């Protein structure tokens, strides 16, 4: 950074605008979520979540200024050290953590509690970026180059699992995106997505129907196949793939019915079909769908929501904040939020692609992937397309740890991006 220039120079204004829009909409909706028509508490009242969130937003701006002031090289140089510190905190939390909401994953500094698991995303992103910044590493040719990455991800995963924060651990799945971008063969994510889809379908429908459908599709594929391909092994390959898929379907069926206990089966099923347990876990999903659905096209109006008041929807201001948006602002509101997110992550990908250093590019993709995964799961669960996994909606959900970690994650990238004109390509 040159002397005398403002620290905001070259920061991507589009991302910042989307960021501020998200914070603003989120804050107003947290207020609506906790608003009690009887008491008319103010949005600035520090005793409710909206007031507290404002405090968190204030501290976040201070953090952002710090990030922008610190030299951009700091993050690359200290990647592994930051990773080590977060791992250390995750270990500390296992032994000395405070128990909040059933998971021992909080560290208390005086009045504020932080969740180190929230910062694991940042640590893993930096560590992976640093590792991949070595141009000799190739994900398309060398299998052994994957091992360090697996190590970087698995170590914090185990620690987070031990502290009972499964949701935070699943976020690591988002690193598949950067691995794909950096050369992982395309068939690996394809297999991943197809197996996940197969798994869900085989839990929901009768195995014989699915097997029939697979055979029909395989038949059509073979029929459409050019004769040359068919002769060169296409026929065998297709039959083989179809056979493996059918085996998976029946394998899942067998596992569910013969290996799992009845109550374990119930827990899995309710993730997929909430109506099967309207009083338990399914209640959240049903109620959340009612709240969003009752919003209609234009919504019921600010503070006019009825479903999201009086604790109808649990975790209203945190994991289910999207319900408030849906009920009070209708399809217009939800469409705006979805669009903002897609714009944000697409913009991040574009920014990542224009980086000259591989470190910066990889890191940019990591950030985009993490935001995408939270968006995918959080909104997906409120509209009944995803299982109920307790992870926040970035910038919207109430909570200091998540707001801080998402903001830090984002602004470190914006800082690196702002320095792009001064960096030299390193391959």
């Amino acid at each position, binding site marked *: 950074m040159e002397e005398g220039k403002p620290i905001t120079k070259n920061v991507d204004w589009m991302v910042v605008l989307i960021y501020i829009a998200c914070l603003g909409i989120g804050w107003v909706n947290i207020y609506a979520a906790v608003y009690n*028509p*009887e008491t008319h508490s103010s949005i600035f009242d520090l005793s409710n979540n909206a007031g507290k969130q404002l405090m968190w937003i204030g501290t976040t701006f201070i953090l952002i200024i710090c990030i922008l002031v610190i030299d951009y090289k700091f993050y690359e140089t200290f990647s592994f050290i930051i990773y080590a510190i977060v791992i250390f905190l995750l270990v500390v939390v296992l032994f000395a953590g405070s*128990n*909040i*909401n*059933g998971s021992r994953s909080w560290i208390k500094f005086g009045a504020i509690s932080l969740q180190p698991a929230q910062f694991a995303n940042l640590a893993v992103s930096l560590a992976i970026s640093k590792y991949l910044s070595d141009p000799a590493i190739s994900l*398309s040719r060398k299998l052994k180059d994957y091992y360090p990455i697996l190590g970087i991800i698995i170590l914090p995963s185990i620690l987070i699992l031990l502290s009972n924060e499964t949701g935070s651990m699943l976020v690591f799945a988002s690193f598949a*995106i950067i691995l*794909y*971008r*950096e*050369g992982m063969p*395309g068939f690996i994510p394809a297999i991943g997505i197809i197996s996940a889809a197969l798994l869900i379908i085989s839990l929901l429908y009768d195995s014989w129907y699915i097997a029939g459908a697979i055979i029909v599709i395989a038949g059509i594929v073979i029929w459409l196949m050019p004769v040359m391909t068919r002769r060169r092994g296409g026929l065998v390959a297709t039959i083989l793939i179809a056979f493996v898929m059918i085996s998976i379907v029946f394998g899942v069926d067998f596992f569910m019915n013969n290996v799992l206990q009845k109550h374990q089966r119930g827990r899995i099923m309710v993730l997929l079909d909430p*109506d099967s347990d*309207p*009083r*338990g*876990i399914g*209640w959240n999903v*049903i*109620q959340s*769908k*009612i709240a*969003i*659905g*009752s*919003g*209609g*096209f234009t919504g*019921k109006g600010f503070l006019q929501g*009825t*479903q999201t008041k*009086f*604790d*109808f929807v649990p975790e209203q201001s945190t994991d289910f904040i999207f319900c408030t948006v*849906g009920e009070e602002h*209708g*399809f217009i509101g*939800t*469409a705006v939020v*979805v*669009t903002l*997110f*897609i714009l944000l*992550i*697409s913009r991040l*990908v*574009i920014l990542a*692609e224009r980086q000259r250093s591989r470190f910066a590019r990889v890191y940019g*993709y990591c950030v985009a992937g993490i935001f*995408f995964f939270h968006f*995918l799961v959080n*909104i*997906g669960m409120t*509209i009944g*397309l995803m299982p109920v996994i307790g992870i926040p909606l970035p910038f919207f959900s109430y909570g200091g740890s998540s707001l801080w970690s998402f903001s830090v994650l984002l602004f470190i990238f914006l800082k690196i991006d702002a320095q792009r004109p001064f960096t030299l390509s390193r391959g």
Partner: protein
Amino acid sequence: MLENRRFVIIGFFTLIGIIYLFRLFYLQVLDESYSIESSSNSIKRVIEVPFRGQIYDRNGKLIVYNTPVYDLLVTPNKVKVDDTLRFCRVLGIERREFDSLVNAASSYSRNKPSLFLRQLSKEDFASIQDIMVDYSGFEFAKSSMRTYKGATLANTLGYVSEISKTQLAKQEEPYYRQSDYIGQTGIEKIYENELRGKRGTKFIMQNVSGVYKGAWKNGELDTMAVAGENLYSGIDIDIQQYADSLMVNKVGSIVAIEPKTGQILSMVSAPTYDPNILATRFFSKNYTALYRNPYKPLFNRPVMASYRPGSTFKLIQALIGLQEGVITPNSGFTHANCPIGCHVHPGTPTVALGVTHSCNPYFYNVFRRIIYNNKISNTFKASAVGLDDWHDKISKFGIGQQLGIDLPSERKGNLPDKKYYDKIYGENRWKFSNIYSLSIGEGEILITPLKMANVAAIIANKGYYYTPHVIHGIGEKKTLKPEFAIRHETGVAAHNFDPVIEGMLGAVEGGTARRSRVEGISIAGKTGTSQNKRGMDHSIFIAFAPVEDPKIAIAVFVENAGSGGQAAAPIANLIIEKYLTRKITNKALEKRMMEADFMKNVILPAPPKPIVKDTTKRRQGIPMVPIEKPMPKVINWLKRF
């Protein structure tokens, strides 16, 4: 090449965005079932709280039940009473009272329902309900209160209270919600899953003013509330209350067991308190008072207090000695060459007489033979092997481990083994001369009253026991938990019990407990005097009766009351007589025991401020907690909607 993958990635993101937009459009615009006809209608979930299971005693008497109560709520903004006088007449209040009640409610909130009249009985409710439809702004809230039969069994039954935040967070299956009630200790806690029943849920539609507009989705998702299961206990409530009355002004425990089944007949933890005071709105205040009470009424002594068993332990030494063959029924020992002193008593040429006179040197010698009953010449090593051998045999009586009663926080006590003494003295650096006080139940051995009662049951059964349990039947079918149907063997042959029982009979007829014998009932008993660091000895007595066909086995512990014959034996024998014959012949003894005050001997740990100076107050029992009128939490109840 690889940079082209960005299009795949952005394409994938956009695809998901589009899928979500379609889904949202479907939910919010196309699907009619969510946007109910008028936009002001809302779907409300109504929770039906199930009836908590009741608890019966062995004779079918209800000892824990629910009292239905109704609260009348008022929403000041909506009040519309044309004929106030008639309204007041029906409710049985005066006009002035009516105004002040409405004003009080208004000061809380004009839009929210708040309490108008609380705790209307079922009958009041029935007579008022019909005419209440003429007046708007009033509504009834159904509520129930857990009720216990009197100031008894407090620690055994436990209590229910609003679930705490930590409990809410810790639950494995997401069942409880804020302001739900949950069993906190005792039977209420252990059988929480059986007692609580299943919550029902109804989805209804209503408009802005809360008017019912029908079931949502025709009630497809509704579930009925299922009442909790009733529990059948082996407690005899009459005997329980009689036992309580004998333990007034005493600190200690009584445990009575039916030997043939393991059912608990009575369980006293003294001092006790009225469990009803923890069912009220004043829970936290009353709980704090109990918690701070220096006599620790919340400490469930029968399963949590550990004592040295004293001479009662000689019974087990005799049984092991006989089973091992180191003594015969006709072995005799004298006071010669024994480091433990004794009192003056007739000779002890047999095991039975050794028990009857509770001769210390007798059991010193028995224990010595048990420990050295091996061929190792090194006395240190022989002691180590002998002790572990002894430890295994005593363990079979349930000593030094949890018996597995259906009550929380059962303590193991302490049954020392080789490892234990190795830690104190070092390996091979201790021998019989270091541990001989175990022979008479002193030294490092610790035992709970429950386990001692179980020992009495084992002797009554001549060798076996069923895990003592309070509840023997769950639900309509009165299912017995399988673990309570297992017969545990002690490995001591039935014939070896005969001389010991003979000695116990002698102890009651003419030995250490002779002053409290009961005419016409053959009681086998053994006194014990437990030494302790705090003041006077604890008085212990275990017994069973009738010897020919044992119906009751009992252990009585009275803290700082002197020797076993002074307090514990008379109390135990009074209870036995009452249980077997339902009457008391020695009224003078009964009166003396009821009035005896051993509490004054109890040395309390230096209290923060002087406790009860007025001794008259202490007469009536312990916790001087006012029993205030209970009031359920109406506001919390409303929060469920």
